């Protein structure tokens, strides 16, 4: 047995087990580094998701823009930024959702909220 890291509350630790779980999600996100693939995603999400053999659960997360769910299913945060960008969700919008807050509520918790 390998040594895994102790859990931290309200925190996902992206390890090899999560990475294995999220392999399809992360491959799809990696493809979004190509502008042609971004266009293809925007034109037809369903076909794009099928191309990467996403499971029905994974497809549902993408359709719902459920960012907390994507992280739980093994999407890496930095790969999730790419799906955020292509769906019009900035890091801070995704973050507000993961905190269970509105975007405005989240901004109100920041020191200098104009540094976006």
């Amino acid at each position: 047995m390998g040594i895994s890291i102790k859990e931290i509350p309200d925190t996902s630790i992206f390890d090899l087990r999560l990475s294995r779980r999220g392999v399809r999600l992360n491959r799809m996100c990696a493809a979004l580094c190509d502008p042609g693939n971004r266009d293809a995603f925007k034109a037809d999400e369903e076909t794009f998701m099928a191309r990467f053999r996403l499971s029905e659960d994974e497809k549902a997360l993408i359709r719902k823009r459920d960012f907390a769910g994507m992280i739980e299913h093994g999407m890496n945060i930095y790969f999730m930024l790419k799906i955020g960008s292509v769906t019009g969700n900035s890091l801070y919008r995704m973050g507000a959702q993961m905190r269970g807050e509105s975007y405005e509520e989240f901004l109100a918790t920041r020191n200098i909220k104009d540094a976006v």
Partner: protein
Amino acid sequence: MPSKIVAGIGLSHVPSVGPVVDRGRQSAPAWKPLFDAYVPVREWLARLKPDVAIVVYNDHGADFTFDKYPTFALGAAERYAIADEGFGTRPLPEVPGDAEFSIHLCEELIQAEFDLTVCQEMGVEHGFLVPMNLCFPHTASGWPLKSVPLQVNVIQHPLPTARRCYRLGQALRKAVSSYKEDLKVVVLGTGGMSHQLQGRRFGFMNEKFDQWFLDQLEADPDALASLSHHKIMEEAGAEAVELIMWLTMRGALSPKAKRVHRHYYAPMTTGMGLITFQD
């Protein structure tokens, strides 16, 4: 004269700095405190005149994916392309490399038992480019110095330990000093400081930890190298573990290197730290 390390810089590589630079918004009130802190740093660097920057950074899924993920990857190319990390390619010139110097570093580091992945082609993104934007702004004629990118796995656990990163820095120092060309080298350790970008703890920062880390990096880096990943993540957020890359920079300096600049600014979701040392 052999090559030598003349300076080390620890600094955050927050991606939102990229568009600020590209749109010329450095003097916007929310960004001015960060960019002002780099004015004396650039003046100091202009006096030191380094020839090469070794940039210790991590890729964020632009050029490296989890299908094959190296723990340490060193660039050994004449040039490095600007990678598209999913938001379009930034309007920046290609980064010039120094392949001969890189090959020397690979030979020495692998001989010293650091089994690197050697990359003859590598695209660089914000982890590398934001520190370059802040320290070595490009002009119409390109970047002012050559670079060697050193990519570290700080995103898919198991990660190299903080001590391993520190020792890599020490090995890097030896490798630089055995290169026969007379190069002046600066080492950049990038990433951090406190931040967490996922889970309900999104947006977590800890200035107290960050200031302590800066103190220790200067005073007792060997003790700092004993920090566990868990401790860093618990105290400073999961993504703060990038800070282990600052230890590679510190390990590459002599223990007596003198601290020159220090700054801290935490406007949104990341403690943006800056510390410089002269060797």
